[in-house]
């Protein structure tokens, strides 16, 4: 089957990279994948989101209207995408930047204080990666090793330290559910 994932947050929170890591990982594991950004004049500080589809089937639409998974990094994202989630789907919320609880009861909800955890991992900017770690824990979209490899490549130009911090953040996220 294919998983449809929407990741959403403020511009600058790294939601596009979140998605790209997933898609790059899928590529590595020879899965079908598509990454699709919501593009627009929204670069101007507004919100950003992207859709990632991963699975073993040919991918039809790059646009998801009923995702299996939503990762909401801030309140507007929660407001917008919670209703879209498929029945039984997974909602992962960055508690640090949301002000209310989700409303639905037909989905699985995970809230993590991702910013705090990222700070603990030593890289405040890795909030997204914390959430990614947790997502991978919940649903084995990809092997964690694959994702770590991808992270090493994607952050290569920013140096070893950043890579290490992000991998730590990934682990932190992974372990956050325990």
């Amino acid at each position, binding site marked *: 089957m294919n998983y449809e994932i929407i990741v959403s947050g403020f511009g600058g929170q790294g939601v596009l990279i979140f998605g*790209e890591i997933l*898609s*790059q990982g*899928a*590529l590595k594991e020879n899965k079908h*994948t*598509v*990454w*699709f*950004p919501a*593009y*627009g*004049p929204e670069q101007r500080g507004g919100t950003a989101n992207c859709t990632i589809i991963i699975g073993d089937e*040919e*991918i*039809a*639409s*790059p*646009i998801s*209207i009923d995702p299996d998974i939503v990762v909401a990094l801030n309140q507007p994202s929660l407001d917008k995408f919670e209703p879209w989630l498929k029945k039984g789907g997974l909602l992962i919320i960055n508690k640090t930047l949301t002000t209310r609880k989700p409303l639905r009861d037909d989905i699985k909800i995970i809230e993590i204080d991702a910013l705090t955890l990222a700070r603990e991992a030593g890289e405040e900017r890795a909030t997204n990666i914390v959430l990614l770690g947790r997502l991978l824990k919940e649903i084995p979209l990809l092997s964690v090793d694959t994702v770590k490899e991808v992270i090493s490549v994607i952050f290569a130009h920013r140096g070893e330290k950043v890579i290490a911090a992000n991998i730590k953040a990934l682990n932190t996220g992974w372990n956050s559910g325990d």
Partner: protein
Amino acid sequence: MGEKVLIKGVEAIAESAIRAGCRMFFGYPITPQNETPEYMSRRLPQVEGIFLQAESEIAAINMVMGASAAGARVMTTTSSPGFSLMMEGMSYLVGMELPCVVANVVRGGPGLGNIAPAQSDYFQATKGGGHGDYKTIVFGPSTVQELVELTYHSFDLADKYRNPVVLLTDGALGQMMEPVIFPEMRKLNTLPEKPWALTGALNREKNIIMSFEMDPKILENINWELQKKFQKISEDEVKYEEYATDDAEFVIVAYGTIGRIAKSTVKALREENIPVGLIRPISLWPFPYGVITQLVPQVEAFMVVEMSAGQMVEDVRLAVGDRRPVFFYGRPGGMVPSPRDITEKVKQCLSMLLS
């Protein structure tokens, strides 16, 4: 074959063009295709190519004209309003028999519209948005891999027929990343010779390139020669994908982004044992009339799906004639129908057929 890489459609166009031997790019920014010129501006200097941001789309298409006249493999990319500005140039390029590749990453119209994905420039690209009797080859890819292959192929076709080729894609395919395998880098010394190119008339007759002929009798002949070429292209360069049509009683016709979405609709309906098939035109001009016409006896009805208010549907009607109904489902203004939307529409049409 190289390895698979994940890349955006609009960047894949650029890389594929370079691999096809394109070393000249002239363009003007417009969303949603800015990553193409941006990629070119980074990459071309690395391969001794030239990237130049033109002062406008009009300048861009005329720079393309110049470069092509000088024998270069050359490309420009744009989006809807920019493509409209190129219409005089497109008509000239065909009249001058100059090869080049132009991508139009279509967005919502008319006018300024928006930057969301659309297919509402189909008429403009296939029937001739410019003046005069002219045709350009038009491709409508539906995956980034196909975009890569058609881009590469377009340069060869353009040279083969000395005619512009248009890649008609949209913001959805342009902005998405998918894994693709790029063709090998074409060796420049394997590119076709162009004895007609303007390189300085040293030790040869002068070359004149123009689309100008005051005498109507001669211009008529020039036109018939062009028409012969178009006829030849129509016979040799039709491309389409046929999916589950063998026993189909209802056939969807859709291209590009909607082509792939419709395919999943077909899959879903087949699981419900509804005998639906898909024709996905890949060359929009020449349009695959033949394959559609052949299906007429077997099929109860056709449905065309477009991200527009209905344009390609006319070509399908021309292919089908009036023996079968041709339904239409379209969404203009930047909306992308979902597989579920299409499925519902198919079911509606099927029940209309029954009643």
